[in-house]
């Protein structure tokens, strides 16, 4: 299959078009890979494994070498390390401190105080702190 790559100006303009006679397993896998955000990741909740779509992730936090995934109103644990998740999650997930990754799509708004600390309010009302040193990367990811 011939593959063409065109550079997009921004994440919103990113799209993939696959032209084929039939949907093969390889194409299904490619679609799954490209739809990264809709991928499900096994997480632990009360000792049981549950599959959760990455689009439901609000933020991921590392505490005492354990990694926790927070959704709208729940918390899960994962065996994956923060850097491993950072590599596999989509473009809207990015590091905001040494111990935290956030899903940009779940941020309601950000506000800085005079001390230079930036606080993000999530869609569920939770507030998390964004380290100043990561603001530049957020702006780059948002094409600012």
């Amino acid at each position, binding site marked *: 299959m011939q593959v063409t790559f065109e550079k997009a100006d921004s994440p919103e303009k990113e799209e993939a078009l696959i032209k084929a006679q039939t949907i093969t397993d390889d194409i299904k896998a490619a679609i799954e890979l490209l739809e990264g955000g809709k991928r499900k990741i096994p997480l632990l909740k009360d000792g049981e494994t549950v599959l959760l779509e990455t689009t439901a992730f609000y933020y991921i936090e590392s505490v005492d070498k354990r990694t926790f995934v927070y959704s709208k109103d729940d918390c899960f644990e994962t065996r994956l390390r923060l850097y491993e998740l950072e590599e596999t999650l989509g473009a809207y997930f990015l590091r905001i401190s040494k111990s935290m990754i956030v899903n940009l*799509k779940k941020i309601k708004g950000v506000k800085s105080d005079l*001390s*230079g600390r930036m606080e993000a309010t999530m869609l569920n009302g939770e507030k998390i702190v964004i380290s*100043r040193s990561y*603001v530049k990367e957020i702006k780059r990811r948002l094409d600012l």
Partner: protein
Amino acid sequence: MSKIKMVFLQTSFISLGIFFAVGIAQAISHFAGNPYNTDWYFLLSVIFAGFLCSLPSFILCFEKIKPFFVRIIIHFTMVLASVSLLGWLFKWYTGLVGYLFIVLIFIFVYAFVWIMTKWFYVKEDKEINNALNSIRDEE
């Protein structure tokens, strides 16, 4: 914001604020019929003062000192002490009246720097929030 960028911004704002305040003072003095000339090293001393006064900014990053208001007071005191020392070294003032004038300019510059810093953060927040609006999930 990295520490170096913070120092650079503070140095720029402080120097600009001093130049602005002294410029106004010079203009008033000129039109009042009292020409006010500065020494050859004045401009450099202002930039040096800007740099030195930006260093106490690190106190603002000490999260352990709470509330933030206390950090501002410590910062204000340290910067005022630096300005007083520099003013004495570079002969920016002579006598109590001259010193009080410098303190007045300092308060103006201090407020100016915080207003500029706030403006910078508000502008940055607005840019980020506008960009987030276009990608935010519906909940």
